[in-house]
């Protein structure tokens, strides 16, 4: 058996539909993940012990448990809770897509908090002290000095996390969300071709990852153009954090 181009062409529309679902399953957790990660990271770096341990527990749990288990827990677990079944929440939790989004958001956020923490901590301390000694308020120091630098330092770690996250979304087929991999799997069973659908899906995933990579390389170059790094060594601080693979 080998790759069947005619079949690949025929199933392309379905695969693209699956790709759209994959993108939808990626997009919302990226946004929500960022929204909840920032406050959690700030809690983690705060001096309040309660906030610190709450943030630490969040990160430990959702980095430690496989995304599949988290998604299962939400998909199968939520309907057993009375207050979910009997309220408006049911509209959300009865829909596999939203269960996937919630589970993946938690998983993504667990890793993202570490990326953000690493990036914030990579900002040299003397820069912050210099800004303080110039009389900038704490808020101004954070907004004008820490954040812009942290974004640059954290960019490559963030890219690594997003790539792993996008690949990780392939599990949503397990809770009946028909993403790209689930569509490919269905076509395997309808066409009895064990190679073409999966290889085609692999190519699409691969292209998605390369597009992400290209966007981030652009962004990184744009954010560090003042450093004139082309050809020189790349500033890799903050890159070995988070999933760091």
């Amino acid at each position, binding site marked *: 058996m080998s790759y069947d181009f005619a079949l690949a062409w025929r199933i392309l529309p379905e695969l693209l539909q699956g790709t759209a679902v994959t993108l939808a399953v990626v997009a919302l957790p990226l946004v929500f993940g960022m929204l909840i990660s920032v406050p959690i990271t700030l809690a983690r770096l705060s001096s309040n012990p309660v906030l610190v341990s709450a943030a630490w527990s969040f990160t430990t749990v959702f980095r430690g448990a*496989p995304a*599949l288990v988290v998604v299962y827990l939400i998909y199968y677990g939520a309907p*057993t809770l009375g207050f979910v079944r009997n309220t408006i929440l049911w509209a959300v939790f009865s829909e596999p897509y939203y269960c996937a989004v919630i589970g993946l958001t938690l998983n993504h956020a667990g890793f993202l908090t570490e990326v953000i923490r690493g990036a914030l901590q990579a900002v040299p301390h003397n820069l912050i002290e210099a800004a303080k000694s110039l009389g900038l308020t704490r808020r101004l120091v954070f907004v004008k000095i820490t954040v812009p630098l942290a974004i640059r330092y954290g960019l490559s770690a963030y890219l690594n996390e997003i790539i792993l996250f996008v690949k990780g979304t392939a599990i949503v087929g397990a809770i009946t969300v028909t993403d790209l991999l689930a569509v490919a799997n269905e076509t395997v069973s309808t066409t009895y071709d064990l190679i073409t659908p999966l290889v085609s899906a692999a190519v699409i995933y691969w292209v998605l990852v390369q597009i992400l990579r290209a966007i981030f390389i652009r962004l990184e170059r744009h954010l560090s153009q003042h450093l004139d790094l082309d050809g020189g060594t790349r500033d890799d601080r903050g890159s070995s954090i988070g999933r760091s693979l």
Partner: protein
Amino acid sequence: MGILSFDDMGYGDELIAGLFVTISLALLGFVLALTLGVVLGVVALSHNRLMQGFWRTYASIFMGVPSLLIIFFLFYNAPTIVEAITSVHIDVSAFSVGVTSLGIVYAAYVAEVIRGAVHNIPAGQFDAARALGLHKLYRWWFIVLPQAWRIALPGTTNVWMALLKDTALISLVGLTDVVRMANIASGATKQPFIFFAFAGLSFIVFSALTMFGAEQLERWANRGQERAKGF
């Protein structure tokens, strides 16, 4: 309620059996990943353009495609592949598909860690070894390896943790690991929370144990190194 008991009524024994499957899958997969990864790392470090091309392609494929897809692909095609190579037909178990696919995928990450570690060794070390006239093998064994493994340690720990969690994916091709056991048990008892929480917690505990062990190992490996103070 005795749903977690170890007799025929409870799922305690099934869950523990599932845990053993998960751990042995992770360990075997990791051993395979390390072995393949070292070979790939050597390929990645070579200056031969053909070898470089092979490494780039391998890394690009296995880092750019979901591991679940690789698992499904191998699960469907492994019997054909094995038959093509050995001309013997054997039924391939979900477990062996799991070990192979995790090994193949994570070998790319291991090789990347090794490559990074070797690149982090100061060029002067290579020059000095060469200036002393050390044979290539001596140079690698006595100069590069003792320094590189220390640098590679945190990255290797990360690979292990990611691989451990990815064993959950093999449950989707029917392996009766802890996740699948939890799935079966929650379907039968209508108590999903307790079983999936158990599965999740066992992964979290493994990760915590790994982190603790890795910290000790790193401290031991870096015992001769002076660390920058104040951090």
